[in-house]
């Protein structure tokens, strides 16, 4: 049986999500905003799904959750709006993001820098976590926005966004967090911290692909990017609503929040058992400490083994995993993890991520470990980078 371990990139839609979506891909296709009776079922489903999203992240009824096509659109929209209405007009100064920002934010900021915007990037410590105190070196009341991801996609490190949000609130600077990698893995509650904007996307919590959202706290400003009819999303984002997607995301959110009670703990146990066995392989370095990491992610460097080669070997054993340094598919828009945490540069291209979901089982562990051990031994045997680095260390 194929084993899927690329869940930080994309998760398999839950069967219940697929079932919930089906009617809205067929007979109940109507636009929920249409005034006629035929659209009643659509309208009700839309309302239910939105209620589940509000409840899932504990949003206040006065806040907005604007449906988008996913995290990339949400982030791009926010940064575009910020640039046009705050930076270009001189109302705001610099943007502060993380050195490990998601690709959409990192690319967007690199683009904005070319347009003349000032961007500061907060580094992470040896564990892959940002020190909130570092923010004090850069933040001023004129800062346009601080944006820090809730969880690092590659290392799974949980960032201290509550402290960061508090600092932003003290300076009255809007704070954005990308929670795409957090929902379904750790509790996400916009009431626990003064979060101004928050991005999330259904594809990482067993919902459908192509639907996500941007949470906007009541009173926070955002200019529309997709223009058109004023009826959809309160005039914030035009285009006929992707009802099946919204229903799917609502159901997925409900299941993800429920899963935090039991299923996520089961997933953590499977991950931990796997982690213990991976730790036993010689010269393997697990990147972020257990306690600072989401319960589904296991990211490690395998000295002397190219991540690209290891992934292909795993693929032969029908195991799908990933590496952010895989070329050309990887994410090279931000600082490589090994450089960010200040580890040995020889490990830069040896990091792979095994990202589990609540659908992975205990029975799969043995197969994964066996494939890993065999592949690593095989590749190290012919690797010119293995004995050499080892000798250096021993010397």
């Amino acid at each position, binding site marked *: 049986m194929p084993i899927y371990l690329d869940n930080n990139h994309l998760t398999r839609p839950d069967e219940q999500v697929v079932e919930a979506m089906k009617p809205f891909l067929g007979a109940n296709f109507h636009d929920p905003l249409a005034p006629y009776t035929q659209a009643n079922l659509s309208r009700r489903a839309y309302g239910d799904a939105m209620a589940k999203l509000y409840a899932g992240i504990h949003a206040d009824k006065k806040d907005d959750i604007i449906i988008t096509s996913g995290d990339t659109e949400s982030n791009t929209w926010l940064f575009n709006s910020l640039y046009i209405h705050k930076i270009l007009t001189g109302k705001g100064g610099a943007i502060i993001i993380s050195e490990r920002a998601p690709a959409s934010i990192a690319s967007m900021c690199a683009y904005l820098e070319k347009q003349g915007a000032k961007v500061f990037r907060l580094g992470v410590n040896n564990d892959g976590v940002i020190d909130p105190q570092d923010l004090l070196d850069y933040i001023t009341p004129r800062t346009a926005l601080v944006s820090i991801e809730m969880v690092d996609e590659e290392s799974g490190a949980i960032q201290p966004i509550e402290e960061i949000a508090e600092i932003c609130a003290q300076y009255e600077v809007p704070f954005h967090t990308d929670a795409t990698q957090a929902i379904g893995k750790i509790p996400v509650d916009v009431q626990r911290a003064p979060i101004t904007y928050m991005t999330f996307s259904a594809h990482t919590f067993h919902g459908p692909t192509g639907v996500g959202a941007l949470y906007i706290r009541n009173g926070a400003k955002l200019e529309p990017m997709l223009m058109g009819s004023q009826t959809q999303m309160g005039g914030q984002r035009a285009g006929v609503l992707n009802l099946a997607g919204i229903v799917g995301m609502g159901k997925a959110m409900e299941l993800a929040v429920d899963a935090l009670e039991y299923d996520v703990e089961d997933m953590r146990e499977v991950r931990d058992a796997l982690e213990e066995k991976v730790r036993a392989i010689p010269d393997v370095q697990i990147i972020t400490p257990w306690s600072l990491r989401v319960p589904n992610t296991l990211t490690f460097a395998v000295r*002397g*083994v*190219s991540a*690209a*080669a290891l992934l*292909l070997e795993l*693929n032969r054993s029908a195991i799908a995993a990933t590496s952010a*340094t895989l*070329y*050309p*598919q990887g994410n*090279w828009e931000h600082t*490589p993890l090994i450089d960010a945490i200040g580890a040995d*540069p*020889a*490990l*830069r*291209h*040896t990091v792979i991520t095994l990202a589990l979901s609540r659908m992975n089982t205990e029975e799969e562990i043995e197969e994964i470990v066996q494939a890993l051990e065999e592949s690593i031994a095989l590749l190290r*045997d*012919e*690797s*010119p*980078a*293995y004995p050499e*680095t080892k000798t250096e260390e021993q010397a």
Partner: protein
Amino acid sequence: MSQAQLLGSAHWDDYGFKVQSMIKKPINYGAIDEDEAKQLGGDLFVYRWGSAETSEMIALYWVVEAATGTIKMSRFELFGSPVARAANDMLCMLSRNKKVEEIPEITYKSLEYFLRDNPTTEALPEVKQYTITHAMTAAAEAADAYLGNKPDEEGEAVICTDAGIKRKTIEQVIRLHDLTDVRQITHYTKAGAFDHSCTEKLGDILRVVRAKMAEEAATVEVPDDTPFTQMTSEQQLAKINTVIDEHIRHFLVMDGGDMEIVDIKQNGEHTDLYIRYLGACNGCASASTGTLFAIENALKTHLDKNIRVLPL
């Protein structure tokens, strides 16, 4: 952009049969030790290229016969993309029984054609072409190191530190593949793939090399309306080589062979072209029949009806 680019083409299952098999089971994979080298009647020469930091490291092991400088056996070890296994494996095969000084003469085209399943489909997707460049650079540098050739300092300057790519490699790929875009340089070398900060430098090198190429083309260009018989022998040779490259060589290379031009002579109204068959073509039954007619026909059709091809 194109439909193919939109669909993306770096899927592991998309590689051809030959490349797939070489990735799975490279024949020349692994180190050679001193004892084995002695048994083969030569000296062991080891050359390491690249590093783990830059994502690719190749260790080349050659057993060289001291008296003749011939490579009796060639193997490699690799840290890097599995696709590089195919490129290095094929290069090791091509290196065998060649003299060390002949190694830099192995062309990108011949290596790439050897990796193809059929003459019309490229062996590797665009984004993996760099594996061939790296394999050839490593082998050429190894040959220089063996022969004690001093590299040109300017060419040795590392332009892309993240991928460890030198100026000479960038200049070579621009000329060899007639590149016009910085993105293409990245495909052929991996320079600028990770850290994009060297993009500007790559653009500068591209402009300088393109300007030089334009200058050179203006001086050696053969006017299209000159009849073949009135060309100088250098011009004739250049024309013949172009026709052979375009119409003949890939068929020979696909079957593990190749050819080279030894001499060109005017014999009355005829132009006699003396060629030597290489690799599998040498001794092949059709070398004096089908293959010969194909070569002669191509030259007659495209250049002059009085060309005669004489294999040595």
